[in-house]
């Protein structure tokens, strides 16, 4: 009996392991296989080990790949710039309103993603509440528009992923021992220095988690670009959506997805390496 005790931790891992196997590993293998097939939905697809599809796809959609990367980075930076002060205020100044404030952060999630995106379409509409007012005041010229521009797309994605920035940052700020900050001021650090040299480094795990949770879905997002953008803001997610659902071109869509995944993985490893020496788990 006791000789089998070593099995127990593995038994506990089993449900999670099976979950990953069936819903991650196998679909991944299926997708890898689809990407190497050729054919059409009508005539069927044959596995031809068409590795040439990867460079081909990368060349054909390089603009969209780079644009998605660019939007993802801008969104992550904006998210951190907006989200850090929010999380900081809630963690350090929230007082008895902490729970209420956190609730407000996740409140938008009570409506569907698509409704939130479409709401932005109304907010930024040519004659909408924002631009209509500005046009009436003569602040912007009548022909000015935000919808169908990168500004609208990036705003939409930033807004939608902001809670994913705030929550991990909050957790990590909440964990900062206040006595360490007090110690810094006792040692004649002014508030800025105490923040930059003590608080900020201590919250790097939070920043790392927030970046991942924002950057990864932001790069793959297509709905914001679809609703708020135009052809000049097409992201790689829109290409996948079009290839998969409109053209039924599964191999090319699968190849793009694999490249995107690989690219993001490499980027994240590089990012983790950049922060090496830091404890990266919250």
């Amino acid at each position, binding site marked *: 009996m006791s000789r089998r005790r070593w099995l127990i931790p593995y038994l506990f891992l089993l449900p999670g392991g099976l979950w990953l196997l069936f819903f991650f590993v196998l679909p991944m293998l299926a997708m890898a296989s689809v990407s190497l097939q050729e054919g*059409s*939905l*009508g*005539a*069927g697809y044959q596995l031809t080990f068409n590795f040439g599809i990867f460079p081909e796809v990368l060349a054909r*959609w390089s*603009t*969209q790949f780079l644009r998605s990367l660019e939007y993802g980075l801008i969104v992550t930076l904006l998210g951190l710039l907006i989200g850090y002060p929010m999380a900081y205020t809630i963690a350090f100044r929230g007082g008895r309103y902490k729970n209420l404030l956190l609730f407000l952060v996740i409140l938008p999630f009570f409506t*569907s993603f*698509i*409704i939130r995106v*479409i709401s932005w*379409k109304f907010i930024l*509409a*040519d*004659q909408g509440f924002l631009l209509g007012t500005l046009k009436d005041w003569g602040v912007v010229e009548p*022909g000015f*528009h935000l919808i*169908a521009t990168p500004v609208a797309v990036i705003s939409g994605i930033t807004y939608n992923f902001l809670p994913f920035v705030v929550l991990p940052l909050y957790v990590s700020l909440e964990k900062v021992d206040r006595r360490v900050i007090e110690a810094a001021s006792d040692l004649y650090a002014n508030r800025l220095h105490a923040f930059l040299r003590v608080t900020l480094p201590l919250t790097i795990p939070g920043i790392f988690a927030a970046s991942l949770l924002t950057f990864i879905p932001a790069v793959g997002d297509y709905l914001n670009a679809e609703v708020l*953008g*135009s*052809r*000049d803001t*097409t992201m790689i997610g*829109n*290409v996948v959506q*079009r*290839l998969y*659902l*409109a*053209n*039924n*071109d599964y191999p090319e869509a699968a190849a793009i997805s694999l490249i995107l995944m690989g690219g993001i993985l490499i980027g994240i490893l590089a990012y983790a390496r950049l922060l090496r020496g830091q404890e990266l788990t919250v």
Partner: protein
Amino acid sequence: MPDRRNPVDPREIALQRAIAQALTRHPITRRNFLHASLLAGTAATLAACGIPAASPTAAPTGTPRLTPGATPTAEPTATAAPSPAGQLSFANWPLYIDADDPTQSPTLQQFEQDTGITVNYTEAIEDNQSFFGTIQPALAAGQDTGWDLMVLTDWLVGKMANLGYLHEIAVASQVPNFLAHAADKYKNPTYDPNNRHSVPWQSGITGIGYNPELVEEEITSLAQLLDPAMAERYSGRIGMFTEMRDTMNLALLYLGIEPASATIEDAERARDALLAQAPHVRDYYGNEYAQGLADGSLAITMAWSGDVFQLQFDNPNLRFVVPDDGGILWVDNMCIPRNAQHPVDATMMMNYVYQPEVAAQIAEYVNYICPVPAAREIILRHADEAESEEDAEYLRAVAESPLVFPTDDMLARLHSYKVLDDQEEQRWNELFGEVVTG
């Protein structure tokens, strides 16, 4: 129907509202009353010209006759007994029948009453390609897709028929009302010769919609939309479609090329024309173009006839034109997937909606092009019988609109989509992909 349905589109809400308005203009009670009196007449007709019940050709293998309500086992089509099974799974597009809540549809209710067939009507189709993606695996494996009747656009019907994915129907014996009442234009179409697999549900025109207040001249030709020099004047206020077939075929017509005979080189020229126009295009739209046309952010746009007809209730100034150089007539067809469980029930539904009374009833709500010309007289009669002037006015607008009952002159200028084989489709998709993804 082209890719024009998006369930959460604001446009959908506007459409819902438009239909709700139509509903209030037509009190349900009036319609029910009207049809109650009709039913007595049609029930007899139906029994006569519907589906032959147990006939000598039926069940040579000794298949037991199925009673209404029973669930039959899947049978090979060749030996399918021509008796109804009492059930029908019907996949259609949203807002494409005579009630915005399909369970309230008078057509479906009467059909159930008359035939004893329970209809499971689902608004399951929002896009041809993605719907085909959901049923293709079952079809390829020779299994039942779960649907008995589905409404798909002509080019997909042609493609599926070529692949052997559609159940063959005997129009003459199973859908006699189609032969008796459909407009000639719909008989023996190029995408499905002799209507061996399909009969039209509704159809529509892809042309140009515009707001006369925002353009300088009357719009009559595709050049005004597609020629960069002309389009420049409306730069940023031009709408085009994300639907590859609509946009590519329209560009071919602009270049003076008959879509049916277009080669790959022609498609490349269409791509070049679209790319030249692209800098002036505000966006490539699905349904949402209608919103833009309504709120004035689009001056001139590709448009579907039925949408503009609906928009005209709010803004009578809006126009829809079939350009002199041509427009596209697309046809959404009822068809039965291979290995469907209840094909006989499906053909009964096909025959049912081709009664002019029923066709009129659907046309009054749907406002796309009605395949039954005789429905026009009936709608006019409904207008005369209408209780309120508002009702009558609406019904007359439907009957007299060339967008619901097009004139011969319009029909003569309409072309069908080119039916693409796999290779062509792949190439066209690539070419069009260059246009819509900058």
